[in-house]
């Protein structure tokens, strides 16, 4: 079959389609977004009637996928690494219930924080939940592992975590497909109490999960995704996890490394393979594109065994993504140095687009809040986070999805009145609604700006769960009608918008102001599509 030119994300999506997936659930988040987008755009997926809708957040996505697995079908759930924090309750407990139909969780990590607020390593979650994990080194492996993951999940009756990183997710290469499988028939779990985690049942299920660990390790030793490559120079043995393997072999002509290598792609790591490397080599270098998880396990708290080097002893940087040069330096190999960046080159940070509705909303807020002084605007995750930077410098926090409203409540409780929350429409339905309920129940003197651009903007304009529902939700949660305002963030309404914000800042209770104007990117896209449709019509 002809190879397809696919991003790592797309390779995973295609593999899931080919492996008989019945549904994919996700909330957009860089670098995971393109998995769902690929399925949504796939004609094949449409023909196979594969469910592919955005969920309100990663937790609802995880739970929906678990429900599909309960019903015997294969389900995929995708998120960025911090999304797994949101889904963690469902994820960890799904390991205890176990899976019926194949259940695969994709966590896309972002070492070096290209588009994230931290660089947490999802492999910790896999270990924490006692589930098998896969970590591809390249896009073909991503395809192969995804294709295999549903089988593994059904064979072991547990969810499988597939961990990728930004570089793999957003790098494109030729990928070969495998034969397309049929979807599972609807079939209930053999034991109808399996998913009832009452303590008496949960204890039994948990013991079963622990009991599976040796089988999972045996599976990791035989699947072919962990490989031992022997070599003559045993002064050093190298453990290379996932993508780090590429950065290692890049440094050697013909990719021939003179040291023994244990290439890790599946967890729990087979002890026998690790033991072989450790016993036969004088020292061990551990390469992980993320946290030094294996390295820490191998060296132990006291580090009294063989010499183990990597991120913990400074051989490699403690943070950030790896690259071929860093690995070369770790191996004491000479590295090429290009020229320095000339001094006249200036930083060009990302910024809000020209014509962005958020800019006008923040310009009005900046002016309205002037009389109270700076430092009281709690914000959230989205394009509008860029308003922290020049020229707007409007916001003072960005922590996690939904934290704007709840942090404003806490700050107001401490006496910072008025406190302001600025949150996007999609982030609001992701994790802001419960916070707003707290604010109403607490009668907090806060003003919440729900910046409604009618899309999930930062990740490229995916459907927002909030679309057409924001005022209804606020009313339903209990915000009083006279303190809900929809404004149009445009220069020509600037003064009038300032007046409304000013009035609500002075109000000693919960107000919601909804600056509503469509994202300039999705608007332009729609205009282009319309023009194209017209052109086609004219031709016809």
């Amino acid at each position, binding site marked *: 079959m002809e190879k397809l030119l696919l991003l790592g994300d797309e390779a995973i999506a295609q593999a899931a389609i080919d492996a008989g997936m019945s549904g994919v659930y996700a909330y957009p988040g860089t670098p995971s977004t393109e998995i769902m987008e690929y399925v949504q755009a796939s004609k094949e997926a449409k023909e196979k009637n594969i469910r592919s809708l955005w969920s309100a957040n990663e937790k609802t996505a995880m739970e929906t996928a678990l429900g599909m697995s309960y019903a015997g079908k294969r389900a995929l759930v995708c998120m960025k690494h911090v999304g797994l924090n949101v889904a963690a309750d469902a994820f960890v407990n799904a390991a205890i219930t176990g899976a019926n139909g194949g259940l695969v969780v994709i966590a896309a990590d972002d070492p070096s924080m*290209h588009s994230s607020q931290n660089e947490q390593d999802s492999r910790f979650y896999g270990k924490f939940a006692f589930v098998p994990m896969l970590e591809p080194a390249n896009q073909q492996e991503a395809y192969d592992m995804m294709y295999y993951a549903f089988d593994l999940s059904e064979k072991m009756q547990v969810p499988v975590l597939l961990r990728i990183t930004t570089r793999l997710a957003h*790098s494109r290469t030729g990928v070969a497909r495998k034969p397309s499988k049929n979807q599972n028939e609807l079939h209930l779990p053999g034991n109808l109490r399996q998913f009832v985690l009452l303590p008496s049942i949960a204890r039994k299920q948990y013991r079963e999960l622990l009991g599976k660990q040796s089988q999972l390790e045996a599976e990791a030793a035989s699947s072919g995704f962990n490989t031992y490559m022997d070599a003559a120079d045993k002064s050093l043995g190298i453990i290379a996890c996932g993508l780090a393997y590429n950065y290692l072999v890049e440094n050697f002509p013909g990719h021939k490394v003179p040291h023994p290598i244990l290439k890790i792609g599946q967890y729990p790591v087979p002890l026998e393979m690790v033991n072989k490397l450790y016993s036969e080599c004088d020292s061990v270098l551990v390469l992980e594109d993320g946290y030094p998880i294996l390295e820490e396990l191998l060296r132990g708290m006291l580090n009294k065994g063989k010499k183990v080097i990597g991120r913990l002893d400074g051989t490699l940087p403690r943070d950030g993504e790896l*690259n071929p040069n860093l690995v070369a330096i770790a191996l004491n190999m000479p590295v090429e140095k*290009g020229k320095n*960046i000339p001094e*006249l080159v*200036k930083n060009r940070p990302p910024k809000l687009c020209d014509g962005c509705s958020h800019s006008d909303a923040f310009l009005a807020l900046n002016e309205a809040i002037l009389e109270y002084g700076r430092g009281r605007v709690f914000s959230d995750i989205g394009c509008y986070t860029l308003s922290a930077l020049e020229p707007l410098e409007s916001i003072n926090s960005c922590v996690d999805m939904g934290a704007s409203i709840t942090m404003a409540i806490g700050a107001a409780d401490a006496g910072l009145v008025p406190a302001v929350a600025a949150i996007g429409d999609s982030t609001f339905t992701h994790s802001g609604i419960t916070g707003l309920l707290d604010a109403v129940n607490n009668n907090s003197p806060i003003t919440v700006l729900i910046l409604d651009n009618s899309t999930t903007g930062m990740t490229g304009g995916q459907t927002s769960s909030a679309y057409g529902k924001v005022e209804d939700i606020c009313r339903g949660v209990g915000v009083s009608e006279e303190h809900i305002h929809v404004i149009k963030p445009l220069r020509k309404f600037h003064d009038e918008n300032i007046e409304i914000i000013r009035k609500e800042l002075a109000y000693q209770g919960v107000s919601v102001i909804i600056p509503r104007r469509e994202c300039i990117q999705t608007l332009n896209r729609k205009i282009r599509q319309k023009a194209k449709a017209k052109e086609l019509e004219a031709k016809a």
Partner: protein
Amino acid sequence: MKKDIILAGVGGQGILSIAACIGLAALEEGLHLKQAEVHGMSQRGGAVQSNLRLSSEEIASDLIPEGKADLIIAIEPMESLRYLPLLQENGWIISSINPYNNINNYPDIELVLKEIWKQPKYVTIDADGMAKDCGSIKAANMIVLGAAAPFLGLKPQSIENAVVKLFKSKGDAVVELNLAALKAGRDYALKNM
């Protein structure tokens, strides 16, 4: 055959179209390729780059090691200089001379160009002006691709085929525009390298 290419520009300028053309051409010639893109936050008007690697042998790393890139292709002159640490000693810079000025401290464009001209090997090209002459400024990225074409180690025909493939859905007029831009860029580079 092995070519390591850095594509540079500002989010929204169209470096991914250049990458897609080179990628399609490389596929047609049966080469291995890896292309690391930047998605997400940086796309919002920030500096963006893509690592594009072509080879007749299997490629390991998605990222080009420092000091090893064969050429930098830039749609924006200051951005061409940002990736000098990745370029090898005698690597080529192919850059548009047209600044994309969305920051308040953009340096004097003359100084930026002088900095490029200090490098041993370069082609600087008025991509916007030449694209306008071809019919639309939107084809500026194809002017730059054309200027880079002689350095890619790919057959001219496969690059043309790629352009046709990429723009086919937008109609014949768009295909013709982009092919003309590609040719104009290449002719200029061949005369000025």
